[in-house]
């Protein structure tokens, strides 16, 4: 084989490699949808999404409680993680001296690497008993939200920090030259300029929270019900799939794939918004 022959064909080989991701994405969409089809047909799309009773044994497949469960834990986590994460990002990008940063950044990186089951275990052993003191069994929306807070924190911190850092230096200098305090500069100039990157970080964090299955199974109690208080147990979409998939069959299994479809569409929407936000952020910074 001549080197020219290899050179001509190598391009197609690496192109094939590059196409695999998209093919997998399409295959996931097609196969999940195909498996979910019986459930959509027998139960009906509206009945499935808005039904409030999930009783596979008598053929009732309403996933609204799980949708609300997912939203509840995610929202709870976001309420805690957004201010914390943003504060930490500002600390890393603007406030902390070099030595603190050198210590804090690796700490955030380690937080990313901790397995979700370890978060779940800590949840069972530390957070659930803590919440039990306040009321209920402890396995609850609140426990899920607290565990997720720790899990999404690193995502929000690192993306927000990057986008605050990417704000052109002259923005900051301009504000300081006008007599603004450091904090006024951060709040009125840097954070607004980095807004789209910060939004992207928050949205990606949300995606991570909605998709988390195992840690949620471990701490939310898994009762399929619409929670009325943070102390109530609940079940999330992702957790709901994992809890039952190993013994489900027939229509029940199909209904679990339908949950997968809902989750997939949700994540697709969330990620598209995040990608758009990141692109817009880049454009703004290029122009500015």
């Amino acid at each position, binding site marked *: 084989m001549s080197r020219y022959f290899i050179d001509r064909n190598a391009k197609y080989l690496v192109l094939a490699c*590059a196409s695999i991701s998209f093919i997998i994405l399409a295959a996931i969409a097609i196969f999940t949808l195909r498996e979910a089809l019986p459930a959509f047909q027998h139960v009906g799309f509206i009945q499935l999404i808005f039904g409030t009773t999930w009783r596979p044994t008598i053929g009732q497949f309403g996933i609204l409680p799980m949708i609300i469960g997912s939203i509840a834990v995610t929202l709870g986590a976001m309420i805690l993680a957004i201010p*914390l994460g943003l*504060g*930490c990002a500002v600390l890393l990008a603007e406030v902390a001296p070099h030595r603190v940063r050198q210590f804090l950044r690796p700490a955030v990186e380690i937080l990313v690497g901790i397995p979700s089951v370890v978060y779940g275990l800590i949840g069972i052993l530390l957070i659930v008993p803590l919440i039990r003191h306040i009321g209920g069994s402890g396995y609850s929306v609140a426990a899920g939200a607290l565990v997720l807070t720790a899990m999404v924190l690193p995502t929000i911190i690192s993306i927000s920090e990057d986008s605050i850092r990417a704000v052109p230096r002259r923005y900051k200098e301009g504000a300081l030259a006008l007599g603004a305090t450091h904090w006024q500069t951060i709040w009125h100039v840097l954070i607004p300029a980095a807004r789209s990157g910060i939004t992207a970080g928050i949205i990606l964090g949300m995606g991570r929270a909605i998709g988390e299955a195992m840690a949620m199974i471990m701490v939310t109690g898994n009762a399929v019900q619409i929670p009325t208080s943070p102390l109530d147990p609940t079940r999330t979409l992702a957790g709901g799939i994992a809890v039952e998939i*190993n013994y489900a069959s027939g229509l029940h299994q199909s209904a679990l794939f339908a949950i997968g479809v809902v989750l997939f569409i949700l994540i697709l929407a969330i990620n598209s918004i995040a990608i758009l936000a990141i692109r817009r952020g880049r454009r703004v910074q290029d122009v500015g």
Partner: protein
Amino acid sequence: MSKMSAKSTQKLAKAFIWGSGFITVIILFLIIGYVLARGLPQISLSFLFTAPQGGLSGEGGISTAIVTTIYLVALTIAILIVPGIGAAIYLTEYAKDNWLTSIIRYGVDTLAGVPSIVFGLFGFVIFVTVLHFNFSILSGALTLVCLLLPTLIRTSEEAIKAVPRSHREAALALGSTKWQAIWHVVLPAALPGIVTGIIICIGRILGETACLYVTMGGSSAMPTSLLSGGRTLALHLFYLATETNAFEKAMATAAVLIIVILVINTIINWLSHRFQARMHGGA
């Protein structure tokens, strides 16, 4: 707003900012400290080298989980390397700014956000059911390859991009073909960065559970081939924590996992510092 109040707002805000950094560090130390404090005393040679009893007792060690994890990591990385690095080469060296590239990019970016459990459903249909690999290490590994492809592509891309243009130009000027320049010059120079990406993937395999829970079956027996089912360390931890009351064993398993992940993080930091130093020095 008077000057005084702007100053005191600033004080308050900075207190909050430092506070949030402090809380983040506390969370980390709490998790690592708690797991190590309760888990480390439980770890012994016999814990590492005896098989778990399985079932509801949760007694025994973690030997089979360690072996399964090693098999799974080796098989996943072996399958992942060619498509991952190949895609990165295409995106950095060949891709033009056209519709094809945007579709490929969209695929990589979107796949990166798909939840682990959805990959699990997909692997369950394709590998476990349609291809009849059953609940096995092979099914788990193939599912992980789908999950990790975007991670390896992105990290390898960064590594390849960091190789200075002058390297490529020098090779081309000496009469090499484009592929020879990539194969003999660009890839060797990017190798430490690519290795970093592979190690990041290994770290993620160790922590992954949802997609493996659905594709590996969770047997606690020693795997005899790649078609045996099994449980990784993280899966074993999950079973212990949810199906048994053996929380001490769960903590010990968590401690083993945390230690391995800390080691991996240290290697990644060391490698990427070295890589950056070389790229900046060698240009």
